[in-house]
């Protein structure tokens, strides 16, 4: 296939790729969320499978291991009737990475329609998107962005609270290395939510408040009056004296437990992108609280959001971009 001309892109989402949330408008985010809603219903119904993407090839290209995200994308593609291929590429940044461009060129020659890419280096997915002719979805690049995670988080919140605007959301944990945090900061900020970030100072990136958030290193203060508490995963190799001294110290001050949660609103909801480190960043009792925890719902929303993204990015290819254009008033 060849890339669709810019004028053939759908007016409400005029992007060839989904590389990040930064730069998307509130309208465009709303469009993706609305479209995702439809797929939540489809997925809950009896007949989950459609033939919308029949004949299209979707390649899951993962340079970093992942089970959840890859499975979620795979399921989304298959439910839409696409041919889905999974590729895992061992990647070490010590071994010079010509492989990235090489792999992109090789795959491009096979004429895929959508490439879903995860890579351990920030910016790598964008670099790859410049070398291929098909749509590219960023499934997480380094510490940069993970747009479908932010979309599924937003969908989860919106379904529970009916809105995003005006909510106070605390994002807690390894903000420095987190692509989930960055995508959520952009999305929630664009949609009018108030965002707080909470971490030990060693895990807060420089000038983070310039992204429109309030930064805290006191978890109780940060949770005060929050509608949503979003926990992040802390990788174990960062917990032994490099960024934080120990797991027990981290849990004591930054782990989410009943006690700290009391500072938040009584009906506050808890989220986690998974996989969880129980007893490190989150107490099991809290994670499993069915009244509060949205963690399983997030997984469900993930498939719907990814179906909506695949659907949207292939509209032009399927010749349906026109149909999505906003109706013009009759003259």
């Amino acid at each position, binding site marked *: 296939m060849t890339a669709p001309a810019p004028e053939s892109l759908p007016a409400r989402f005029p992007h060839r790729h989904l590389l990040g949330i930064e730069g998307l408008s509130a309208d465009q985010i709303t469009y993706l969320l609305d479209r995702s809603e439809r797929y939540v219903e489809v997925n809950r119904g009896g007949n989950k499978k459609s033939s919308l993407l029949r004949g299209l090839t979707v390649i899951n290209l993962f340079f970093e291991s992942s089970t959840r995200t890859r499975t979620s994308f795979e399921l989304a593609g298959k439910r839409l009737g696409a041919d889905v291929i999974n590729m895992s590429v061992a990647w070490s*940044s010590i071994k010079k990475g010509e492989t990235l461009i090489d792999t992109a060129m090789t795959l491009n020659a096979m004429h895929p329609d959508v490439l879903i890419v995860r890579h351990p280096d*920030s*910016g*790598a997915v*964008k670099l790859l998107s410049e070398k291929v002719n098909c749509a590219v979805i960023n499934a997480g*690049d*380094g510490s940069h962005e993970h747009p479908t995670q932010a979309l599924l988080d937003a969908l989860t919140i919106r379904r529970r609270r009916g809105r995003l605007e005006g909510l106070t959301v605390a994002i807690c944990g390894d903000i420095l290395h987190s692509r989930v945090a960055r995508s959520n900061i952009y999305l929630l900020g664009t949609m009018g939510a108030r965002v707080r970030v909470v971490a030990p100072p060693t895990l807060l990136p*420089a*000038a983070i408040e*310039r992204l429109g958030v309030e930064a805290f290193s006191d978890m109780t203060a940060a949770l005060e009056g929050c509608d949503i508490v979003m926990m992040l995963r802390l990788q174990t190799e960062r917990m032994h004296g490099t960024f934080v001294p120990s797991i027990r110290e981290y849990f004591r001050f930054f782990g989410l437990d009943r006690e700290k949660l009391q500072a938040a609103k009584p009906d506050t909801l808890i989220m986690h992108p998974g996989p969880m480190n129980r007893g490190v960043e989150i107490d099991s009792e809290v994670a499993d609280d069915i009244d509060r925890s949205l963690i399983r719902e997030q997984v469900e929303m993930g498939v719907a959001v990814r179906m909506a993204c695949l659907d949207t990015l292939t509209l032009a290819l399927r010749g349906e971009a026109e149909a999505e254009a906003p109706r013009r008033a009759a003259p």
Partner: protein
Amino acid sequence: MSERFAFVNARLLDPASGLDARGALVIEKGRIADFGAHLFGDGAPGDLPAFDCGGQCLMPGLVDMRVQLGEPGEEHKETIRSGGLAAARGGVTSMVALPNTEPVVDDVAGVEFVARRAREVKLAKVYTYGAVTRALEGKEITEIGLLSEFGALGFTDATRAVADAGVMRRALAYARAYDQLIVQHPEDPALADGDMNEGEIATRLGLHGIPVAAEVIMVERDLRLLELTDGRYHAAHVSTRAAVEAIRAAKARGLRVTCDTAPHYFTLNESAVGDYRTFAKVSPPLRGEDDRRAVAEAVADGTIDAIASDHSPHDQDSKRLPFAIAAPGIAGLETLLPLSLALVHDGLMPLLDLLARLTSAPAAILGLEAGRLQRGAPADLTLFDVERAWRIDPDAFVGKSKNSPFDDHPVQGAVLRTVVDGRTVFQTES
């Protein structure tokens, strides 16, 4: 060119003496025989072969005190020949190569190799630094005495800092016996373990930030060691206001410290990284606007003694990578003069002062007989048009590597002709 030759109708510029006058210059057997405003009365030089400069600027050839030439070891990126062509095109008649080749220039054979290759190539004059420590490992100091005897112009671990304070102290003290210069890459390696300047842009891009403090901490440590040892110290490619201020204060205290910067540090700021543009990845990183301005001001007031290209040629494969693993550096030899002239055109400093930073000042730091118009000195000259406006086109570089963030960058000032030992090594078509 014949044995005797004259440049007439030139605007003679000699930053060392302050000369700025219309006149002529005569070359004889590769050396400057005579020059001045009234060399031939007001008449023609008789039957002497002459080139009419049409009023353009004739100055001592540029002395570039920091280049990487890729040879030996990385000849696919640059060679002494291709780097020599790039230098000639850039008006550079003398340059000093970093010792981080493969093998490292940490013994006399390495120094001799560079000297021999440069003699064979016969373009710009090529000198080399010796490594401060064996294999640039930062542990054992090299044979500084012998290496300097064989022509090493100073000592540096190139793009690596001499991180160990004890090693640096000994290097500064030991080099004093041979009156040798220690050139530092002033970045604390533990703090400089990142991809770009620390701040909002790095945070947005998810790249590891390098704080401004990484530079000034190393500079300040080294200045203390300099005070302790009474050696000679040169800080390379200064990029921050804090480091500039530390060096300014040290100079006021009378320490023997000098420093340079590269044009990108006073031309660009961190926003040039844009959306992961690896051509704007350099070490140290491009800084914020306040630092950029401080560097420009320090060049103007002389706190920064010299401007060097920090020529770092890289092939496509080293740059077409995710930002974090792309090679740092800019191919800068061919754009050194026009980018630097912006400081004059922007009204920050007089022309002669700027040219001093590119000629007499680096030559003095290195102890080279170069960088000034002097009777009997080698005829290393650059003829340039200070006004000509053009846009940089890296694809048109004659050097092997085209890695420059200055694609389509508008500049004013162009090299017309470069002369080394009386031989023309570059000349524009027209």
